[in-house]
């Protein structure tokens, strides 16, 4: 897994003319990874029954936005010999589970690297957690609060979901500032601020701040200093890991005994791993099937040997 460094996982793609300016400014301030975010409301997706909104509705998810950068755009990183990583992210604003119909059909929705969700009520969140897997749970300061409790927070944490707090609305507007501080205080009470990431949702390049400044916001948002620093670096790497695991899905590992060519040593030869599916050992796994070759026969087949199911979390 490559080291991501400081990360800013929410740069909206809506004022399209300034996307490149914002990305270049973020790289200048010290960030190494950046994710470009497209927000889609559930009501704007096209349903055949509702014929009144035909013109405004989308028939399919939009393509992910890309930014081309040359080496002159990131001089500080190029001096160290590093390259920035640019990810793409999709955020859905939902009321109930009907968006799954559109999501499972389309192919463009699966091209995005990260997946986020903004639920409008706690019922919507509970229904989504049962059947749908996503990476980031975000918050829109223009929507109303809903009620959090410890059980809901723990459930979301177990499904590898991180909670996101945005700091750009705090800088521009006073009412939003109060709402976001109240939400952070709530997260502290309900779950000790585990699994929180801090990101900007900056619509102008002026609203971006350097990573040390963002980590120092932990004092206002009722977090420890440790959590503040984790929120900009380590937890973002965890989000990327969880997203990769979600895309890969369930896989299998097969353990075989290697028969050596010198026949005298074959009997006492220990069991070794022959064929392993191509992956690195640190990534999270949904479920593993390990085929145990404990019999002394040299030829092993999948049907004869015992199958052990291991689940890791």
């Amino acid at each position, binding site marked *: 897994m490559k080291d991501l460094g400081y990360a800013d996982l929410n740069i909206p793609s809506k004022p399209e003319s300034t996307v490149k300016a914002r990305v270049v*400014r973020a790289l200048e301030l010290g960030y190494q990874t950046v994710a470009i975010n497209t927000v889609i409301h559930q009501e704007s997706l096209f349903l055949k029954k509702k014929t009144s909104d035909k013109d405004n509705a989308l028939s399919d998810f939009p393509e992910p936005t890309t930014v081309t950068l040359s080496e002159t755009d990131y001089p500080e990183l190029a001096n160290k010999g590093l390259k920035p990583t640019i990810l793409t992210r999709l955020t859905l604003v939902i009321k109930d589970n009907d968006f799954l119909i559109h999501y499972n059909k389309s192919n463009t929705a699966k091209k995005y690297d990260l997946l986020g969700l903004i639920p409008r009520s706690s019922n919507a969140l509970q229904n989504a957690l049962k059947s749908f897997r996503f990476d980031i749970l975000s918050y829109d300061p223009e929507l109303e609060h809903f009620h959090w409790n410890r059980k809901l927070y723990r459930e979301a944490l177990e499904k590898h979901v991180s909670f996101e707090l945005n700091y750009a609305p705090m*800088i521009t507007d006073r009412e939003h500032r109060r709402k976001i501080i109240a939400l952070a205080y709530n997260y502290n009470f309900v779950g000790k601020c585990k699994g929180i990431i801090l990101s900007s949702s900056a619509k102008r390049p002026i609203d971006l*701040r*350097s990573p*040390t*400044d963002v980590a*120092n916001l932990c004092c206002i948002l009722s977090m420890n200093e440790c959590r503040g620093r984790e929120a900009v670096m380590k937890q973002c790497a965890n989000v990327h890991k969880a997203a990769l695991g979600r895309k890969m899905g369930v896989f299998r590992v097969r353990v075989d005994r290697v028969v050596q060519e010198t026949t005298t040593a074959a009997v006492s030869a220990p069991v070794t791993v022959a064929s392993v599916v191509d992956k690195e050992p640190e990534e999270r796994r949904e479920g593993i099937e390990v085929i145990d070759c404990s019999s002394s026969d040299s030829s092993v087949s999948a049907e004869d040997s015992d199958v052990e199911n291991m689940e890791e979390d």
Partner: protein
Amino acid sequence: MVRRKHRYAVVQLERTSSIALPYLDVKPLKASEDDIFKAVKIKLGELHGDYGRAVTTLGMRVKYLNEATRIVVLRARLGEPFKMMASTLPFVTSIGAESIQCTTLYIAGTIRHSLIFLEKRQKRIFKQVLEMFKSDKGQKKYKMSEPELKERILQITKLEM
């Protein structure tokens, strides 16, 4: 006697009008140490209330200010006072009549370390700026005639002389 410990934050103030442009910003700041001190105190009162202002203003001081390079070194007592001051720096958006943006470059335990960091940084940036004065063929040519030098400076900084 117990030693009083402080933290020194090295902060750069950038103008919002010159953030996205690739030209050097050479105009000096028109602000004094008092103006900066007041702007930070007012934001502290908004965010942390009476407790914030009371706890931080005991040991808070502006220790170094360079208007040409727009660098400020702010001091506060170790612990709660410094945490509160550091968390309000992203929210400071205007000093006097100008709109600016704060970025913390370094946090030091003594004045000496903060100035050592500054010296290294300015030397590194000076080298980068000197490279802009190359001649058109790419050679490093630092002895230029007066009209050539004026033209090159105007190109880099976009000032109106």
